[in-house]
Every structure is written in C-alpha cells, then in structure tokens.
C-alpha cells in the first residue's frame, strides 16, 4: 500500500526512472471555455511506452495533442500550465510550434498517408526540413525497416501510391513517416482503432521494437492494449488525471476506486 501510494505520486523524483523526457505540469486546456483537461501533471519517461486511457471524451486526445502543439489549430482552444520537453517549455513565447512538431512525431487515429508515392510519403518531411537528397534513399529504407514495412514493399512498390496499401500497412507507413524525422518522442492517438486484429498485433509488436530507441505515448481506448504494450499508464476521467503509475500496478492493484472500476470494465 505504501509502495503504490508512492507510485501514484507523480513527482519524477519518486520514480526509479531518470528525469522524464517530457513533463506536463498542472495543464489546463479548454475549448471556448469548456474545460477538457483539468490540472494534469504527468511525466513521460525516456524509452518507455506510456499509455493514456479513459472513457470517451475524457480529454486524453486533447492532452496528447498538447504535447506537440497540435491543439493550436483548433479554434477557441486555450491552454494553461507548463509542458517541459527536454527542459524546454513548449509553450514559451520564443518557441516556434513548427519546430516543436518537427521534433516530436505523431501518428493519428486513422492512417493519413499523403496521396503520393510511398517513397514521397517518407521523404517529404525530411526534405522540407533540409535533409540532404543524397542520403534520402537510405533514410527511406531505414525508416521503412524500422516500421516493419520494408519487406512488404521492397520489391518495386516504393513508387506505388500509398493509398494502394492496406489499412494496417498505411498506418505503419505513417509510423515510418514519423520515424524518418528522427524524433525522440512519438505520440500515437489511438493508432489501432481503425485496424483489424492482425494489423493491430503487428503494430503492437512494432511498439516493443521501437521503445528501444524512442519514447512513445499512446492514447488508447482498448484496455487490453494498454496492459499489453505500455510500461506506464495514466487514467483520465473528465479531464482529470485519476491515477498514474506502472501499468502492472494500475491494472492489478489500482489505488483509486474509479480506476479499478474502469479497468475491470464496470464503466467506460
């Protein structure tokens, strides 16, 4: 009991991990005055998979999108609090949101490849950020290998349209596209929710591979998925962080009653 209480304490110093790569402190986000995220403080540890779970509309996607300033595009959104990424406040006045998104990758709920060739899908991001053309072939190949897609398309399909791929392949292409930017942190917003079980398990396998080199935050609706893939789990309800801790603890010995009810499927 003492131990789990300590785990629920969110201060990074209490954890066995080093300094978090990203630290959200007291984050409030609202849409036109309607609160969506309420006072969330959450560390994201390096080379770990952190999953954010919670019922529909609990603010988990909103919270995730605040980590790379994707909420900036939403009309009427306002944000308070601090999000430190490698010690830099992402919302400081002198921080360019374009630079933030260039450094923190994102994979979306529905696969959204560009209607271009597979090669161009991956090469475009590095190209606009000034990556040298000579190394592009290797970068594309490496990114596709890291996303476990290379074997399926190496035989002359690089120039095919990305839209000809299956849904699961498209999502892995989107992961490869994010990896090509060589981010340290990758945000995934329900990346498997539109995929079949086989594609889902391929992506989950891929996540295990990726966490050796990257830090991943994954929003998911699927509690089994959170339990399977993540090291840390944050449970949100009505915009509030109800519980955060190691996944094994959150799922087997939750401290909060609501967490227990949610993970055992009694609501949500």
């Amino acid at each position, binding site marked *: 009991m003492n131990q789990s209480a300590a785990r629920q304490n969110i201060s990074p110093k209490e954890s066995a991990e080093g300094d978090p790569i990203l630290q959200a402190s007291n984050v409030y986000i609202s849409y036109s005055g309607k609160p969506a995220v309420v006072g969330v403080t959450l560390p994201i540890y390096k080379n770990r998979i952190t999953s954010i779970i919670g019922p529909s509309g609990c603010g988990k996607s909103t919270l995730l999108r605040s980590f790379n300033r994707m909420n900036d595009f939403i009309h009427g959104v306002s944000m308070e609090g601090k999000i430190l990424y490698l010690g830099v406040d992402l919302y400081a006045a002198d921080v360019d949101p374009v630079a933030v998104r260039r450094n923190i990758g994102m994979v*979306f709920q529905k696969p959204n490849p560009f209607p271009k060739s597979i090669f161009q899908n991956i090469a475009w991001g590095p190209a606009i950020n000034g990556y040298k053309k000579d190394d592009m072939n290797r970068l594309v190949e490496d990114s596709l290998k890291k996303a476990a897609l290379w074997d399926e398309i190496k035989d002359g399909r690089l120039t095919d349209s990305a*839209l000809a791929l299956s849904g699961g392949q498209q999502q892995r292409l989107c992961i490869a596209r994010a990896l090509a930017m060589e981010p340290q942190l990758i945000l995934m917003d329900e990346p498997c929710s539109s995929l079949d079980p086989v594609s889902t398990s391929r992506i989950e396998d891929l996540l295990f591979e990726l966490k050796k080199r990257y830090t991943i935050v994954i929003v998911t609706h699927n509690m089994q998925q959170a339990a399977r893939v993540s090291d840390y789990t944050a449970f949100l309800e009505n915009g509030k962080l109800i519980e955060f801790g190691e996944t094994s603890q959150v799922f087997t010995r939750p401290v909060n009653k609501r967490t227990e009810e949610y993970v055992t499927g009694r609501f949500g």
Partner: protein
Amino acid sequence: MNEVGNLPRRRLKAKLFHLFCAFVTFMGVAFLVILLFHIWKEGHHWVDWQFLNSFPSRFVEKAGIKSALWGTIWLVGLTAAISIPVGVAAAIYMEEYASKGKLNTFIEINIQNLAGVPSIVYGILGLAIFVRWFNLERSVLAGSLTMSLLILPIIIIASRESIRAVPSSIRQGSFALGATRWQTVRAHVLPAALPGILTGLILALSRAIGETAPLVMIGALAYVAFVPEGPMDSFTALPIQIFNWASRPQEKFHQLAAGGILVLLAVLLMMNAIAIIIRQRAERKMK
C-alpha cells in the same frame, strides 16, 4: 413474405419517377442537339481558312472573324492570367489563413452575392474604373480586368469549396512533420484540390468567353480590322462580332453569325478539353 400491402403501388411510383427523370434529362440533351444541328446547318459551309483569316467586311464573301477570334484569345488569356492567381490566392487565404470569424463570414456572403450581380453592372464598373479612372481606354487590358472582376467570385467559390473538401487529416499529417502552413498548402492541399479548382476555372473562363454585355459597355469595338498586338490595343471579341452580324438585315450575314458561333463553340470546347485532360492527370496522380 405474405404481407405485400402497398408494395405494387410503391413500385409503380418508383418506376414513374425513374421515367420522369430520364425524360427530363433527354429533353435537355434533345434541345441542345437541335440547336447545334440548326447552327451547324446554317453556318458550317462558311467556316473555312478564309473565314478564320479575314477581317470583317461589308461583303459577306470577304468577311471573316480574324480580329474577333484573336481579340477573344487575348481577352481570355489576359483574364485567366489576372483572375486565376488572384482568385485561387483569395480562396487559399480565406480557407487556410483567415480566422473563421464574423469578418470572414461577411466576406463570404459578399462574394456569393457578387457572383449573382448582372454582368452589365460589371460593365459599368469597368467603364468607370478601368476605362476612365485608370485611363486604360478601350483596351484589351480594360476588358480583361472587367472580365476578371466578373468571374473572380466564381473562381473563389469553386476553389474554396474544393480546398475545404481536402480532408483535414492530410493537413494534420503534414503539420505533425513540422511543415509550415505554406508548405502544407503547396505540397498537399493544392494538389488535392486541383481537380475541383480546375472545374471552377473551366466554368469561369467559359463564362468569360461568352459574355457580351460588359464588353459592349466598356466600348469594345464592333468593327476592328486589325489584331491586337499588346494589352493596350483596342479589340473586339467573338460574341460582339456574332451579335453584329446577327443584327444585320441580310440573310447571308445571319449565316455568317452561325459560322461565328461554331468558331466560338470550338474555342470553348478546346479550352474545356485541355482543362479536363489536366484534371484527369491530377486525379490519376492522387490514386
């Protein structure tokens, strides 16, 4: 399966509606075919190289539409050069950059209203602003500027709609890679919206090619025995020449007018064909 009820009556209604729609569609096509046939019968033997390559004349045998044809080509070319960049840029601004506030709605409503303003009103505007105030006289440039005003609302509305139809997931994917707004628009939004924008451009330029009233208003000449050599030259256009011939008493000139219409239609179809080819290429690239 035993409860049939009113099924036969519903089936009959469905069939009647189907027939009605088919009938109305074929009626439209039939009128077009009759019209085209009539014009073809009247005018086609006038359309030859001599007709295309001669200036207008009092003598039917010598008369041609060289000046009107070149005037129209100049007019449409300049109008396209002015209105396409301005219209598409305005659409991009309103969809991608402007904040969706009251001002944007106000501008949107105004543009929609402008699309419905009678063309003669644009003619008066062109006369006052371009011909008189800017001192452009009765030049192709003044005509093109007036025509651009006339078709800008159509281009803006069509471009906005196809830009809006580009799924926002594509924009988000682009932004998430650290692209700026312009890089996103340039690389993803515009290519995806291109087929729709081109359709709007075809419609708009087709309208420009057939408009007569504003040109008459700003003083395009009815008798021109030269081809414009620059944007400041005076000019005539196909619809004006056709109207001029059609309003003469002699029967032969009416046939000449029919020949002019055939040329006008040919130019129009050629423009549309080019736009459709570009559009299909763009669409194929997207798949």
